[in-house]
Structures are given as C-alpha cells and as structure tokens.
C-alpha cells in the first residue's frame, strides 16, 4: 500500500474512516482501511517488537498478517466506539491475535496472507532504534501513536502548503519547528536564508502552526473511532488532560 500522507484521497468527514471501514461499500471500505493502516502500522509494528520481543522478520510478518486480516476479515465490525478508543481496541486485537497464533502454532501461515501491504519496515526499524523506550509496551504504543499522528500531520501540511503555493511557509516551519534544538536558527538567520523579512518569518510560522494545528486535528479524526474519542484526544493533545 502506498503511503497516503495527505489523507485527502479519503473524504474527511467526521469519523467517516471508522464508519466506512465498517460499511458495506467495498471501495469506501478499502480506502478507509488504507487510512487506518497508514495511521497505525508503525505503532503496531514497534509495539509487537517490544511487547512480544519478537525478531524483526516475525514482527514484519505479524504486522502484515494483522492488517491483512483487518482488510479481509470483519475485525472492525466488532468495534464499538462507545466502549473505548480505537487504538485500545486495535491493541487488544493485536494481543489476542498474537496469543492465538502462539497457541495454535499457526505462525507459519502468516506468509500466506492473501493481501500483501507495502510497508517500510526498514524505516520503522531505524525509528525503533532511534526512539527512547521507557515504561511499558502499552505506554510505548501510546507514545508511538502520538508520534505517528504528528508525523502524518506534518506530511499533510507539506502537501497542503505545496498545493497552495506556500512552500516557503512550510520550509520555514520545517527549519524552525522540526529542526534539532542545537541547530535551531534565529529568526534573522531564517530571514537571510529564505530572503524574506524577519517579520515574515513570524507571520509564516504563525500561519504554518495554525495550519499544522488543523492538520493534527484532521488526522486525529482519521485515527479515532468516535466524536467523543476525538474530543477527548483533542483535549489531551491540547494540554488539558496532559499528564
């Protein structure tokens, strides 16, 4: 499956992703599953590597198998947004599937998944090595979920800025907000680099951050299962319930 960072291939209506994935229209269902896979495969892969301490190849197979089953079977049909978060549901499914596979010793069947999804495990493996792993695997899954949410929102912003001819705005945002702390340039340095006024740097950053905020919330729509979950997560991300 080709990454779909923008997510605009899927019409962004509130919780259409989960609803469509549970729906009957095969085309809508397929696009919804793409969006879910795109949002969740990295946290799933890394979670399996850490939680079950499996080798890289096994984790790759399992991730493939998990999302193939999500596509082929009616996994999501049993998801009730009123009962919990989508990611908690998915994590429970992962654990259950893994335990079942262990019990039934059917792991060799993983390679037989009918649908092969193109996922960049090499990159995920590098990310796994680069990230700090404190706390439980469940905490790590949550952390990776937030990381993926922000990373997909950045991609969404990149595509939107490019389409709107605001590439400098995105570039300024990328240099200032996504750069290393040590090499973070001053506003004046950015103004020189992009040949714009210092006041423009401020304005571009305000614009990009505002758009980024919208992208995060739009991405969050795709990654949550209900309006209530979305509201709760939005509040948590915006600090009110942050620990």
């Amino acid at each position, binding site marked *: 499956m080709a990454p779909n960072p923008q997510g605009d291939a899927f019409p962004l209506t509130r919780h259409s992703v989960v609803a469509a994935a549970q729906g009957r229209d095969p085309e809508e269902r397929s696009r919804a599953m793409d969006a879910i896979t795109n949002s969740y495969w990295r946290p799933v892969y890394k979670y399996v590597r850490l939680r079950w301490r499996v080798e890289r190849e096994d984790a790759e197979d399992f991730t493939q198998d998990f999302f193939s089953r999500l596509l082929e079977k009616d996994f999501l049909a049993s998801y009730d947004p009123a009962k919990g978060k989508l990611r908690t549901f998915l994590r429970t499914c992962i654990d259950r599937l893994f335990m079942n596979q262990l019990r039934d010793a059917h792991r060799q069947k993983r390679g037989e998944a009918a649908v092969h999804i193109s996922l960049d495990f090499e990159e995920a493996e590098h990310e796994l090595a680069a*990230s700090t792993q404190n706390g439980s695997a469940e905490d790590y899954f949550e952390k990776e979920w937030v990381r993926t949410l922000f990373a997909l929102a950045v*991609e969404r912003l990149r595509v939107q800025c490019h389409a709107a001819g605001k590439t400098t705005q995105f570039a300024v945002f990328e240099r200032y907000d996504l750069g*290393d702390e040590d090499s973070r340039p001053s506003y004046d340095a950015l103004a020189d680099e992009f040949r714009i006024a210092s006041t423009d740097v401020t304005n571009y950053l305000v614009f990009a*951050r505002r758009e*980024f905020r919208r992208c995060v919330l739009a991405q969050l729509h795709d990654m949550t299962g209900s309006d209530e979950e979305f509201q709760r997560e939005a*509040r948590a991300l915006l*600090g009110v319930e942050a620990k």
Partner: protein
Amino acid sequence: MKFLPDQIVARLQTGMQTPDLSGTRYRALELLGHGGMGTVWLAQDSILQRPVALKVLAAENSSADLAARLMQEAVVLARLEHPGIVPVHDAGTLADGRTFYCMKLVEGQTLDHYARKLPLRERLRLFQRIAEPLAFAHSRGIIHRDLKPANVMVGPFGEVLVMDWGLAKVMAATSASSATGQVSEHVTDATGLSSTGTQVSGHEFTRAVQGPFGSGALAPENSTAHGTVLGTPGYMAPEQERGEVNLIDQRTDIFAMGSILQSLLQEPPGSPEGESYSRPLRAICAKAMSAEMSARYASVQELAADVGRYLDGLPVSAYRENIFERTARLVSRNRVAVVLVLAYLFMRLLFILFSRR
C-alpha cells in the same frame, strides 16, 4: 514520512497548546497553568505594554457548553467590580476558534501557601477579607461554587483576590434582603420553561436566568457538559455533592468558607495544641459546615462577623460558653484592667494587714 524524535514531538505538542493570538493585541509568553476548562497564559498586551493573563479554552472543537461557560465567567467577572475580584479587560474568540478572556495578571501566592507562615490571628483576619468580595458577589446574586484555598490569591501587598469564577452560578434575586442576605431564586431553563435545576445522566443543566442586572443581564446559561458534579471534593457542600443544583445558594459558598476556615486553623504537624483548637473557632467551622443548609450562617457577613467577634474577645453566635469559659474570656479580654484591680486589691490587703499591726 519523516521520523519525529521525542524532542520534536514534545515541541510540536507544546506549540499546539499555545493559543493562536494572531490578529490580537496579545503575545503569549508563558504557560501559567491549566485547569478543567483551559489554560492560563502570561501574555504581553502590545498596545498598553503591560503583562496580562489570558484564560483560553482548551480546544477549538470543545463543546459549545464550555465556550459559553468561559464566556459566562468573563461576563460574571466584568459585572463584579470589586477590589477583591480580578478585573477582566477583554473577551472573544481567537483565530484558532478558541474562546478566551483577558484579565489582570495577579502575582502572588495562593492562600494555602501564603497562610502557612502566618500566626493564627493574622490567618483569621485574612479569612475575614476573603468574605468581602464573596459578600459582594452574593449581593449581586452570584454563587462562586468552587471556593478553596487554591482559588484565593494573596498579592504582594497583602491584597486578597477570589479567583476562578468558572463554576459560578447566577441566581435571579427576586427578593434580596440586605439584612439577612437571603436570596430566593427563579430560574428558567434554556428552552424558556420555568424549572428548577436538574441533574440528568450526570450532566448538569444550568439555566437561563433572569438576573439582577436589568437590561444588562447576564447571558442565559446553557447546559454544562462536565459530566460530573461541579465543585472540588473536600470543599463541596452536601447539596452540591448530591448534584441538587436547585438547592444551591449562598449557603453553599458558606459551607466552602467553613472548609477554608478549617484549613486555616490547621497548625503544622508537631505543633502544640494552641488557640486554633479553641471551642468557639471549632464551633464557627461546624456551624458554617452544617449538613443542614438552614443550620449554617445565613450570610457570609454573619460568618465573618463571628470570626471578628472571636478576634475581639467577644462571645460568638455559634458557641454557647459556660461560666468558666466566659470568665476566662473576660479576663483574657480585659487583662490590663484585671491586673490593675488585682494589684489594687492586693495593695488594700497589704494595707489592712499592716495597719492592724
């Protein structure tokens, strides 16, 4: 997809929390804190060149209830012009859709921190000053509903401010007696039907209110979607804990004031039993915190006056003292006179004894 290290994720998350102040006269400087509804930011007013505090709703997608409640808080504050209540300067909606209001930046300490180092009598005088803005609010038909030491600030010059009116209940004073402070209530719900407040499925539905502000009446309250009983455990009156919104009046705040007084009477661990354990003070607390609303003080002025009487060495209304306690109090209050009388009697006695020889 670009991998974002933890540090960048944290930075972006902080950036997400920062309100979008573009198009306003304010510039966000620092996050001061966050509460149930939103965050409070230190900001610079670029026109008047002064620091201010901005209270901003958490998310632009938050329910209309919360936005209405924050705006109601701003309107309540704007109506309560009193030295003991933080003034509000401005209110509105930011570019990112979040509701905000701007208020005076209050620098100081919360009551619990400030009072720790004070002797008991100064703590009691401080308590009396909390009662002043509260009495003013009650006279305007507004019940705070979330009084606690953390919501009282003491400024660098000793000024006392009652903060966080986010849960304030606006009552319509159809008959207010300044003598007793009694306020009777008439409420109208958002549909315009007269009713008392109700609690349905854990959601409190507050009401449109015909307030005491004439044509400048407060905007009607809409439903609050907190999903829990409003208030802070430990400071909530029983009727508040039970969610009996229709019963809430100024005596609900008096209960919380009793809890505050109780916390002010607490001495550091290991301190010897002192004046703070005196029966009249304990009785004042007990009366303010009576489970029965009718057994509490009728007004916050009465409560403050009882504390004042205690400070002046007078009998308090909450406690009926016996003859020994009365004598001890009178002696304590008139110590100089008693010493002079005793000295006089002693001199007389000596005179009589020596004159007989």
